[in-house]
């Protein structure tokens, strides 16, 4: 392992150093009501490392639920545009759950193909993501099926693996290395490999068994846009979009003008969801996705067929938040299992 170690005391000092230098630090932290979310922290004691999945993913740090794209001022026949910055101050995420870090990396593809979204990449470049090995498995997690796992490094710049009294630090990217180099005195020597291996094995014990092999699911989806399954599985979908809200990879957005009086205003980008009926509604009244099952199909297709076909990776990291959030009790792993069974049956028949 390419790495270092860091004790809890050193990590606390590192957080203090960063905060003192004006670098924002975000970590999973509990609010007064006990809910765990990624929040700004100023000291290590407030961070909850490797012990629970934050309610919302890391997505909001890079694609805020609402953000200004620019402001405009109207004066007679003239308009002036006030730009928003596309470069951002340095930011460290400490204790990212591996499935959340993976989600951010998955989104780099859509944000960067052909047209480069500078608001996304401005934040990406300013941010160093330090993941921590995850031990917070529950029955809705399925990261293993999406290529992730409790110590997966996709999307992370550094990965912390718990050791007695601190962590082993795996350096994943040059950005991660730069953080270590800049704070050299806060890091210890390379860890004992056997200790790291033991810790990884313990975390892997919490590794979620793949819900289903996803390659056949992807193949099945590409061939079954029309299928009675859709109307059936989507019956419980209310179209509320809670799944998209909590999802680390759902990135659909709306663009709206918010006038403030008649002389000025702001154009904003807001989270949106393909689960909403008006998402695809044309001005003419025509709606290509008129039924909820067509909308549910779109979400599933986008994650497991469209995105892989276009960008070579799944648009799902198996965090399981959609299943936890759904008021209708829909369960993505259950749907994937159903599709995998059909794929297997179809394969057997052929």
């Amino acid at each position, binding site marked *: 392992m390419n790495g270092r170690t860091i004790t809890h005391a050193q990590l606390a000092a590192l957080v203090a150093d960063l905060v003192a230098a004006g670098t924002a630090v975000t970590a999973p932290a509990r609010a007064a009501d006990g809910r765990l979310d990624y929040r700004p922290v100023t000291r290590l004691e407030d961070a909850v490392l490797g012990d629970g999945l934050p309610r919302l993913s890391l997505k909001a740090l890079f694609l805020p639920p609402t953000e200004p794209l620019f402001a405009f001022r109207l004066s007679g026949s003239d*308009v002036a545009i006030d730009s928003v910055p596309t470069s951002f101050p340095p930011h460290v995420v400490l204790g990212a759950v591996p499935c959340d870090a993976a989600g951010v990396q998955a989104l780099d593809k859509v*944000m960067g193909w052909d047209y480069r*979204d*500078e608001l996304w990449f401005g934040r990406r470049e300013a941010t160093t993501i330090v993941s921590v090995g995850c031990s917070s498995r529950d029955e809705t997690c399925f990261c293993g099926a999406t290529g992730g796992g409790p110590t997966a490094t996709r999307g992370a710049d550094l990965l912390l693996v718990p050791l007695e009294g601190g962590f082993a630090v795996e350096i994943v990217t040059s950005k991660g290395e730069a953080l270590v180099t800049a704070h050299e005195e806060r890091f210890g020597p390379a860890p004992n490999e056997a200790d790291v291996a033991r810790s990884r094995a313990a975390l892997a014990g919490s590794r979620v068994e793949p819900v289903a092999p996803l390659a056949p699911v992807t193949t099945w989806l*590409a061939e079954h846009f029309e299928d009675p399954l859709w109307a059936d599985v989507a019956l419980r979908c209310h179209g509320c979009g809670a799944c998209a809200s909590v999802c680390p990879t759902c990135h*659909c957005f709306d663009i709206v*003008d918010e006038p403030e009086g008649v002389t000025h205003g702001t*154009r904003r980008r807001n989270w949106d969801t393909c689960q909403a009926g008006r998402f695809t509604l044309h*001005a003419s009244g*025509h709606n290509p996705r008129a039924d909820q099952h067509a909308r549910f199909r779109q979400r599933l297709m986008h994650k497991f067929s469209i995105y892989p076909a276009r960008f070579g990776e799944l648009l799902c990291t198996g965090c399981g938040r959609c299943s936890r959030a759904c008021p209708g009790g829909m369960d993505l792993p259950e749907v994937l299992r159903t599709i995998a069974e059909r794929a297997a049956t179809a394969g057997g028949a052929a």
Partner: protein
Amino acid sequence: MNLYEPYLARVTDLVDETPDTRTLRLAFQEPELARTFDFKAGQFGEYTAFGAGECTFCIASSPTRQGYIECSFKTVGKATTALRSLNVGDTMGFRGPYGNHFPLGKMEGSSLVFIAGGIGLAPVRSVIWNALDLRDRFRDVTIVYGARSVSDLVYKRELAEWAARPDVTLRQTVDPGGETPGWTGDVGLVPAIVEKAAPSAADAYAIVCGPPVMIKYTLPVLTKLGFAADRIYTTLENRMKCGIGKCGRCNIGPVYVCKDGPVFTAEEMAKLPQEF
């Protein structure tokens, strides 16, 4: 560069095509951009009425006419109502050009058959003028255009111009009941008039745009006339926000209309899921 920031443009002309359809001509305010802006027929953009929002329209003017672009739109919602309220001299916004285009270069040396219904003439008009401005590069040019009624025909002055040209065959039609006492064109739905006009498919390309139902019934007629599916082009419209493959709104199955389209061949359309 923030992708979502529009260019500023001034309205330099406006034409009411029908009681509810208007064409705006706009010129970019930044002189360097006004001089260098380029696009290809079939591409689209996001047009801003500041304070109301953006609308997705094709660029309805021809790339051969430089120094301005035009859009034609029906007033149906908040943003189109705001765009309609703009006067000559007012400022609007534009992002683009986005998407693919009609492969006019590939069509050089061939005959062109343009078929449009209603406001669907807007993207086709861009190609028509593009081809007519380079008239010697193409063989026969046939235009079949229809609308619900005479008052719903857009670009009336240009229709008169095309009708008067000896190097253009124009068939205009209105739906039964949509004719006026002085109407000299055809009466009937576009697919039927295409069948009657029977343009030769020999070394020809068809460019079709209009309401989905018109396209649906026109394609079999073209097939019957001998047009191969890869020589029939159309342009799809879907609701869009970003126009650049990010916002996730315009997908038809695996296709991003904003990036893979908006121009598709009938052959490509046949492979798409029926969700548009």
